[in-house]
């Protein structure tokens, strides 16, 4: 018995949507433990989302339709990306609707509209957040694509399913190009998902906010959608990293046994990856915003080194 590809598609989207708050909770709990605080429990993000959904929306008087439409669009695009990245199986019908470059640009839609929403009310915070977010992303995007290119050279393809298949079907070997690209990818993923040392998701201090500053005016179900999408985005960046650098376990077919194994391995990788991220976040302090070009520049350099390593060594 094998699962129909469409069933797998729904399964994966359901997993991403359903388990993303749990993953956020896991990170929160670990972080609290490491920092010697009492943890709220893994299901706290679910409670937060439910509470936000049950609340009324308060809108500023001059909010336009862009402000109201953005949460839905952000949620929609994130769920769509959740259907594209191969997390449990490569046989997803939607997986070939977008390759890695298109995926990066899909994340770009989310950023573009969030930044617009940040400027919609016309407060200084929103503009500040939008300006900083767009600056960071424009410096991060070249590095991101270079890292992706370094990986795609090995499999001769920018399609994620093809990358996964090539890597899982060939013998394991340590590739210097992938090592450099992975290092670059980690640096960029921290920047793109707004984690320490680039941005602090827990802060509401005006001078240090980046991502949160754009969302300050949101409330009720709008905020719930955006927060939820943010949690999914974190999972999806991990998923992107797993598919590109550590895809072993992703099922090549719809066999239920392989799928179950794939799910267990995915969960293990996510839990481990989350723990590493918590370690990074606990050990480092947030950077000054004008030191970020150096940070993202080194990410770019690492990705370029990965590419050079491919041409010279492999």
């Amino acid at each position, binding site marked *: 018995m094998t699962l129909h590809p469409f069933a797998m598609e729904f399964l994966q989207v359901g997993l991403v949507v359903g388990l993303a708050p749990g993953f956020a909770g896991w990170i929160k709990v670990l972080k609290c433990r490491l920092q010697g605080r009492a943890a709220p429990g893994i299901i706290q993000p679910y409670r937060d989302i439910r509470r936000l959904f049950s609340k009324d929306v308060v809108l500023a008087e001059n909010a336009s339709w862009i402000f109201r439409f953005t949460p839905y669009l952000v949620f929609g695009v994130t769920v769509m990306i959740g259907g594209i990245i191969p997390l449990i199986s490569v046989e997803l019908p939607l997986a070939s609707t977008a390759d890695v470059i298109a995926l990066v640009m899909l994340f770009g839609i989310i950023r573009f509209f969030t930044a617009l929403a940040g400027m919609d009310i016309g*407060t200084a915070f929103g503009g500040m957040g939008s*300006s900083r977010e767009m600056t960071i992303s424009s410096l991060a995007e070249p590095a991101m694509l*270079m890292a992706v290119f370094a990986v795609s050279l090995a499999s001769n393809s*920018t399609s994620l399913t093809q990358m996964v298949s090539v890597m899982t079907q060939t013998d394991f070997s340590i590739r210097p190009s992938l090592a450099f690209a992975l290092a670059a990818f980690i640096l960029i993923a921290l920047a793109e998902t707004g984690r320490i040392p680039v941005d602090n998701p827990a802060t509401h201090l005006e001078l240090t906010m980046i991502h949160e500053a754009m969302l300050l005016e949101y409330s*009720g*179900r709008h905020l719930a959608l955006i927060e939820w999408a943010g949690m999914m985005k974190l999972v999806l960046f991990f998923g992107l990293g797993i598919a590109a650098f550590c895809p072993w376990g992703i099922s090549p077919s719809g066999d239920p046994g392989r799928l179950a194994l794939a799910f267990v391995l995915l969960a293990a990788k996510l839990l481990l990856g989350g723990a590493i991220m918590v370690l990074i976040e606990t050990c480092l302090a947030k950077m000054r915003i004008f030191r970020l070009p150096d940070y993202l520049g080194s990410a770019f350099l690492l990705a370029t080194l990965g590419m050079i390593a491919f041409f010279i060594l492999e």
Partner: protein
Amino acid sequence: MVVSPLNLAVFSVLLPLTLACMAPLAHRWRTIQISLSFSLLALASLVAVIAGALTVGEGTVATAILSLGLPGLPFHLRLDPLAGFFLVVIGLMGLCASIYSLGYMQGYGKQHSLTRMVVFYALFLAGMFLVALADDAYFFLVAWELMAASSYFLVMYEDDLAANRAAAFLYLLIAHVGAIAILLAFGVIAGQSGQEGFAGYTFAAMRGSHLSSGWAAAAFFLAFFGFAAKAGVIPLHVWLPEAHPVAPSNVSALMSGVMLKTSIYGICRFAFDFIKIFPWWWGVIVLAFGLVSAVMGVLYALMQHDLKRLLAYHSVENIGIILIGLGLAMIFTSFHLPALAALALIAALYHTLNHAMFKGLLFMGAGAVLHATHERNMEEMGGLIHRMPWTAALFLIGCVSISALPPFNGFVSEWLTFQAFLLSPALPQPLLQLLIPLGAALLALTGALAAACFVKVYGVTFLGQWRGHQRPTQIHEVNWPMRLGMLLAALSCFCLGVMPTLVISWLDTIPAQLCGTHVAESASQFGWMWLTPISENRASYSAPLVLLGILAVVAVTWLLLHGRQSQIRRLPIWDCGFAKLTPRMQYTATSFAMPIRRVLGFLFAVREQITLIYPLNHPANPERIQYRLRVRDRFWNWLYQPQSVAAYWVGRQFGKLQHGQIRVYLLYSFLTLLVLLVFLG
């Protein structure tokens, strides 16, 4: 008479030319003049689109020889797929801009002559069509000059301001320096073609010529210089941010969206049609100019706060992206990889069409804003989405398209360009294999900076609160013809973005003509929904499914959340309990770009000045703080300032010869005579 594409194309040239002659007769009746002439121009453009689309679709070549022209060199016309494609580009934007003009020109008062606009607009359109149709060097240059001269008068349209006259002069100057280079390039090819007399000046002879490598390089780079001057490739871009903002917006849409593309046409003709065989470093040079233009163009754009000037700098950026595609196509061609060259060429041409549509849309939108607010400075705008909902929605489509976000059209062509970049491992040169992907990083930087720039444009202009001095209630949505013109452009952006496979199979005759291969078979092997430029395993993109997927999730979420009755409360903005928030506290365009200015500021000539004004003569309690910022184009100081100073100095030195004394002048004549006698004797 048989209706063939060439006949249709000739009709679309003759109609504007006739109109240009007849329009002065109707100068008394302004409304009739506007509606009749611009409807006819829209018709001419539509006919051109049909003619071009048929030619490209069928891949036919039609030629004709007119009985006009020089003795020994009559005017040659030729409509092949490449020319047909540019007819479509020009015609499509011409259609949108002409419909838009129906409404836009009503905003001008009696002090501006309408006849002048109609005549030069019609000549401009006809000139651009003829550039694509001409098949000999003489006719090409006549058309080229018709286009340049008529657009000069259009830039000068509001000639009561000295700044506009200066900008138009700069434009004319650089256009003519470029035209001389193109003329010389034609001369080089014709001189080497081995034909007697004028026969070498037909394009047919140029196609058959076999140039030695040195002469070929001379011809190509002269032509490249000439076309680059017209296209605004950095460092020849200085006229563009001056001339495009001061022209009326319907004209800026045509100039920026379409006129620049005629130089892309010229470069394609020279490289792929006339010369055909060239070394790889030509492609590398084109690619390098493309990359520099793309990155510098978008960075300069980010620093602007004049809406139309900003858009003009973005044209520099997009011409750069097109040149990147062309450069890659040339590199692949020189290594005899026609399939890869075809893909890169398709990427470049697709971006040409896309840029025409979204840049035209954005300029028309900027014109609508200008029309409603009488303001070009973004720092004096804000919150226009409430007053001008149509313009705001259509302008947003333009912003999303130019920022290369799926599922709109800018993304498709940038994605194809990225795919072309990633084919570099197929090249036999290790150095190129390594360096070309770095260009892809610069393209990624360009795309991301463009997105940042358009968040700034849209956020400052249309979102937030009104910053200007007049009351925002005086601002009204623009009239229907203007909306219709923008709507057509926005629809094209959408369709070009969602149906790339159909567009590529339509475009396929051009690489078949120029590179000798097809891409459509592999690009559309899975039907029109899937774009697979090389193979399914290499990369795939399905715009319709991405769009449908996102829309489905958005719809489901919306329905689920609106199932129960819930209230939205509208309240004043939370001001943290301090004094009331004012619109002046918003982020401005200047402050939005500040982090990027700080990070990449070394590329500009930035001068920041902060002055404290303290009337009590004590620095501890300043009354006001003055902030002055000046960001200038470094190229002006490096390249143009010395030249203009030198030209002035030389002029002054020659001026010393003038005394106004007749005896001295007689002496000059005598000396000249002596010198001539010595040399000739």
